[in-house]
C-alpha cells in the first residue's frame, strides 16, 4: 500500500533543516530539488510526495507564523522568537513528530545533499 506525504511536511521539514543550519532565507529552487531527491529515496519504501509550487504559496498562507514572506525565488523563515531552539522545536512538532522514523531519516539525508554541498 503506498502512502502519500503531503506538501506541507516536505516544505516544513526543509525549513527545519535550514534552521538547523542557521539559514533563514531558503531558495525555492533548492526546495524543488530537495523534493525530487526525497521522492526518489522514498519510492523504494513505497512513499510518495505531492509537492508543487502552488503549495508553497498555500504554506505561507497556512503557516504565517513560520514564513515571514516569499520574495522572488526565496522564502524567508520567521525568526520572531529570535530563539532558534524554540523555532526548531515548533517546526519539529508541526512537521516531524508523528512521522515514521524511516521517512524522517530520508528527509534528513535528502537535505544534506542540498545544504551541505560545497
Amino acid at each position, binding site marked *: 500500500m503506498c502512502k502519500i506525504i503531503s506538501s506541507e511536511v516536505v516544505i516544513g521539514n526543509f525549513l527545519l533543516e535550514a534552521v538547523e543550519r542557521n539559514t533563514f532565507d531558503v531558495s525555492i529552487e533548492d526546495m524543488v530539488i530537495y523534493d525530487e531527491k526525497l*521522492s526518489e529515496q522514498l519510492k523504494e519504501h513505497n512513499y510518495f510526495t505531492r509537492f*508543487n509550487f502552488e503549495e508553497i504559496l498555500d504554506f505561507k498562507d497556512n503557516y504565517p507564523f513560520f514564513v515571514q514572506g516569499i520574495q522572488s525565488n526565496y522564502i524567508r523563515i520567521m525568526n520572531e522568537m529570535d530563539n532558534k531552539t524554540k523555532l526548531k522545536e*515548533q517546526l519539529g512538532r508541526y512537521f516531524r513528530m508523528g512521522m515514521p522514523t524511516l521517512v524522517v531519516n530520508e528527509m534528513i539525508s535528502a537535505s544534506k545533499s542540498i545544504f551541505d554541498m560545497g
Partner: protein
Amino acid sequence: MKTKSIKDTIHGYIQIEEPFWRIIDTAEFQRLKWIEQTSYRVLYPSARHDRFVHSIGVYWLGQKAIDGFVKNCSNREVRVVKKYKDSFLLGCILHDIGHAPFSHTCEDLYNYQEKINKVECSLNSRLLELYKKFAETEVIYGAFEKDYKYILKSTDEICKPPSEHEVMSAIVTIQNFSRFRSFFEKDVCLDLDLTIRSILGCVYAVNPKEPAERKTDCGIKNCLIRLLNSSTVDVDKLDYIARDTQMSGYDNVVLDSERLLDSTCCVSTEDGVYYPAFKKSALSVINNVVLAKNSQAQWIVNHPIVLYDAYLLRRAIGISIKNMYDNEYADSEEIDSFEELLKAVFSCEALTREGRWFGKRNVSLLSDIELLNWMKQNIYIKEILEYFSRDERKSPIWKSNEEFLFCLDAEVEKAKTVSDFIMPLMNYLNIIEDLYLTKEINNKLIEKIKTEDIDGKEELLEILNVLISYTDKAGNDGFEYVILPARNTFFTKINAKHVYICFGSKEQYTDYKSIRGEVTESNKKLYEFFYLYANKKTDAKHFLSYLYRKARACSKIRT
C-alpha cells in the same frame, strides 16, 4: 441554426445550438448526470445538482462572454472572437467531461502516487501522446507541448499546473473530437488546440516581436482561455458559485453574471499581450465574486460536517476497492496490487462507453453509481456503515473556529497551546494518507503505535492517552475520535493583479489590486486549526478546558 431551450434554475432559459445539444446527448456527456457537483448535500439536503447542469451553465455563460466581447471590442478583435467562438464554447461545455465520481473528493485518484506537475506522470504522458496523433500539424503540437510543459513547471502566479480532472477532460475531448466535429457544419472553424488549451488553462506563448495580426490572434485566444480557466474571474467560477449557493439554499451574495459578462472586453499591455478585462460597471460584481467565494469556503466547504462526510466517503471508497482486490484479484495475474486496481478503475478507458475490463468486470462511463454500489456491498464494515447511516456517525465537538476560541475563553494563546499539543497526532494520522486504513483514535491505535518506529513516539502516546482518558461532566468515558485538519482563515485565490478594469477607452485601464488592494483575509492565521469528532456528545467547553490543562502541563509546548 436550430436551437433547443433548457430551463435552468440559475440562468433561466438557456439556448443551445444544435451541435452542442448533440454533444450533450452523447453517453460521455450524459455520464455527468451521475457525478454529484459538490459534497454539500450532507449539510444542505437540497444541493442535489450535478456536473451535467453545471457544464451547460458554463456553456451559457461562455455565450454571454462572447456577446460581451462582440459588443465591446474593436472590429479587428471581434473578427477573431467570432472565428474562435465555437472552439471556445466547445471548451466550455466539455470542461468537466472528464470529472471523477464525487467530483473533487476522488479527483486525485486519477493520478494516484504521481504528481500532476511532472511531465512523466501517466496522465500527462497520455495527454501528450494522444494529442500528438490528433493535432492538426506538427507545429501546432510542438507549440502545445512547449506551452504545456511550461505551465507544469511554472512558478508564475497566473499560470498553474492543471488539475487532474482538467487533464482527463482534455483527453476525453481529444478522443471524441472527430465525432463531435461531425455535429458541426463543414465550414465551421473548430480549433481543437484552442478547445483543449481552454480546458487546461494553457495559454499560447506570445513573442512581443511577432507581427501585430498574429499577436492579436493569439491574444484573443488567450483571453478566451482565461475566460474559462484562470486564477481570476471566469465563467466556470461564475456558474458554480451561483449554482452551489442557490441549490444549497445558502444565503450568499448575489452574483449578477449578466452585468459582468455584458462588460467583457480585452486590454493589451505595452508589449502587445492581451488580457480579458471588464468595464467599470462590473466592479460591484467582481467584488461580490470575491465575497461569495470567501463565504462559501468558510461556511460550507470547510464546515466540519462536510469535511467529515468527505473523509468517510474517501475511506469507504478505499476500503471497497481494497476488498474487491482481496476477493477477486489477489490471486489473479491481471491485477498485481490494490494500486493497480485503483488505476484501472480511475482510468480514461473507464470513462468511455466501451469501458475497461479487468477480469470478468467491466466498468464503463464511471460515475458515483458504481462506487456507491461497491460501497454497499461492503456495508457490514463499520467505516462504510458510518457513511450510509447518519446515526452511526461521530459528531464534531466544536463546529467552528469561533466556537473553539470561545471555549478557550477567547484567548488566542490558549488556542495556540492546544493546537501545538495536538500537532504530532495530526501528523501521524493525516499527513500520510492511506486510502483504506482506519484513523480512529482509540485504544487499538495506542497498541498499534507502540509497535511502530515513529519520531516522537512518547509525545504521541501522551496525546492519545490524554484524549482517551477524558471523562465528561457526567463521568462518562470510552470516547473514541477522528481528527481532521481544517482552515480558520479564508481568502479567495483570485489573482487581483490580473483582473483588469477599463475606465473609458481601452487604453484607460488598471488592475483590480491597484484600486481595491490585496484580496486577502485581514486576520493573519495564528494557530493550526482542526476538528475533533467524538462517538459521544460532550460539552465543548468542558472538553477544551480539559485539553488545555493537559497541553499546558506538557513541557515542550510554547507559552
